[in-house]
């Protein structure tokens, strides 16, 4: 197995063919019990019925505010916390079952964390951190170190200068490059980037985003890119999934979702991005208050108490995630024919 495969074919090692999603998530639930003051037991509905597919070779962006469940979803996908229910299919095989135990799944799916410092062992050199994965997977020590050095070079860090350094001796951008190199050490097909560029300065962020694009093309990777920054997500993603209070509110091609959003929440998120035009500043905020707490979410549509389109039915009926256009699905009654919402399009038109 070479460090850098000479054939960057995304369907290399492929089982189900290009049409089969690389990762298929359905009915994912995770509730955390918490004890509030007064001893009352409550649950945080962190992830509350999430379904989506990750297609081969794409970048799926996941956006949402704090409490929307995007980070919990990431941890569930990696098996770092146990899911309450739901299934993960990796290239058609159930993850966590005999055919695809977590151990072999994790050789194909890796993750880069937000905090570049906390995700590196402070007592290990950069090189040791990268070589650790291959070593525990049976690659002989010397070869693992060579691979680590090759990867360092690939992410733009000259091995001679950086291999022996400790995490606190290098800058945040350089550390995140190390983390990316480590995630590639096991030659995965899917890399989950959880706010991986959020803590970086803008100019460094741009460098790392470019690196991610290059690596994707070179190694035929698929990305799940979690971020709160819509501009970055728009730049890097093929498709975008918007989450709100543990649910998917909208998913679709990023141009469609971010240019012509169908869900009122996506619209509000977009309107909240600061404008870069001093002559045309934002005049009013579309949403008031903070994102609500995932303890005790509202009934019906989770967004209805803050929604401009809300009608009584929104508080009663949970909107399903329905198709409104090519690859574009939205969970909003106002967009679904026959939902009972007055703004809903007529059935014939949608058909």
């Amino acid at each position, binding site marked *: 197995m070479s460090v850098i495969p000479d054939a960057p074919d995304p369907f290399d090692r492929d089982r189900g063919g290009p049409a089969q999603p690389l990762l298929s998530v359905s009915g994912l639930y995770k509730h955390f019990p918490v004890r509030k003051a007064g001893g009352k037991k409550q649950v945080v509905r962190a992830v509350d019925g999430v379904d989506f597919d990750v297609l081969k070779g794409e970048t799926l962006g996941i956006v949402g*505010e*704090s409490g929307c469940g995007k980070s919990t979803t990431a941890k569930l996908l990696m098996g770092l916390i146990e899911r309450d229910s739901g299934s993960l299919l990796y290239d058609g095989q159930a993850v966590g079952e005999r055919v695809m135990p977590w151990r072999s799944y994790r050789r194909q799916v890796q993750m880069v964390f937000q905090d570049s410092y906390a995700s590196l062992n402070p007592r290990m050199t950069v090189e040791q951190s990268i070589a650790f994965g291959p070593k525990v997977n049976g690659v002989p020590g010397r070869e693992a170190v060579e691979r680590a050095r090759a990867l360092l070079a690939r992410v733009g860090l000259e091995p001679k200068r950086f291999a022996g350094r400790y995490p606190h001796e290098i*800058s*945040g*951008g350089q550390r995140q490059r190390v983390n990316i190199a480590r995630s590639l050490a096991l030659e995965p097909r899917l890399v989950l980037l959880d706010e991986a560029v959020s803590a970086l*300065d*803008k*100019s*460094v*962020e*741009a*460098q790392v*985003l*470019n690196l991610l*694009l290059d690596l994707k093309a070179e190694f035929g990777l698929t990305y799940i890119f979690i971020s*709160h*920054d*819509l*501009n*970055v997500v*728009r*730049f*890097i993603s093929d498709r975008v999934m918007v989450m709100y209070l543990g649910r998917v509110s909208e998913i679709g091609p*990023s*141009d469609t979702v971010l240019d012509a959003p169908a869900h009122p929440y996506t619209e*509000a*998120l977009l*309107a*909240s*991005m*600061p*404008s*870069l*035009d*001093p*002559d045309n*500043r*934002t005049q*009013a*905020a*579309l*949403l*008031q*208050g*903070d*994102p609500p*707490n995932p303890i005790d979410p509202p009934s019906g549509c989770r967004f209805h108490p803050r929604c401009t389109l809300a009608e009584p039915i929104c508080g009663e009926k949970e909107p399903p995630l329905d198709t409104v256009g090519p690859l574009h699905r939205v969970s909003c009654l106002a967009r679904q024919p026959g939902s009972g919402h007055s703004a809903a399009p007529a059935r014939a038109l949608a058909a």
Partner: protein
Amino acid sequence: MSPPEPAVTLGNLRVAFGKVQVVDGVDLTVERGQAMALIGESGSGKSVTLRAILRLFHEGRSRIEGTILAAGRDVQALSKRQLADFRGGDVSMIFQEPLLAFDPVYTVGQQITEAIRRHEKISKEDARKRALALFERVRIPSPERRLDNYPHEMSGGMRQRAMIALALACHPQVLLADEPTTALDATVQIQVLLLLRELQRDLGLSIIIVTHDLGAAVEVADRIAVMYAGKIVETGTAHQVVLDPHHPYTIGLLRSRAEGALAKGSRLQTIPGSPPDLANRPPGCPFAPRCFLVEERCRQEMPPVGEISPGHKVACWRTDEASAAYRAGPTPVRAAEPVPA
């Protein structure tokens, strides 16, 4: 009749911690009622500049030189006692993390009334009334009830508003804001930015906001100052700096933003390299090693600050070329030659 004196004037401000010269000769004027944004990346000295206005450093470990005039006072000349009154009274500050500004064991209301009574002799009841009015002013819903909340019982955005209320408690003339919206969600960030704008307008407050986010700066500020390696490289109205940049660093910052990408999947334009080591400053312009317009002169001599148009000041030898390159549109802006290590 002389024009009213500015709210804040910094003259050749230099701040050093040990051998590290973090702020290296900053000149800045903020007029009364004006909102100024200091933008820059980590290590640019923007936060240190802001904190110098309140002298928020350990005396023994820092050295502040230059003049600092704020709200009509010479900050360098204030005694410890006067400084305590000055902080919060004439000039107050809000931070990125409100939990650090509040004491967790008292309610938010207690802390605000306490702050008012420390600066003025008024009864508890009157102070509480003022606190209530402040909570309404910063648009905290059901303010009466919220005054009795402990800081941890509030959500992030509400805490930020409460901190702004605390900062305004003693009618300061100048509000300093250090990355006030960085930790907030997008939908909350815009609300806080709009609130700051409203306070500036309604109370005639002078605001200096420090941020790394150009977007946030544009939303709040009348004027923007771009800092790099402890120096201000470009100042001007928001319009001048964002739409008509003349410094290669400002141009690099604008170009490297993801929304400026030419097309999906195309590479972003980046500023190569990373900021200089502040303990060993090379001579000349600190941005020279990363600049796409660098020439020999830039490495020898720091360019003087020149005025491009009224109020628009840039410290660069080659402002015309920079501006032309920017106007030429999204052509690649790249380093002309590899930089020697």
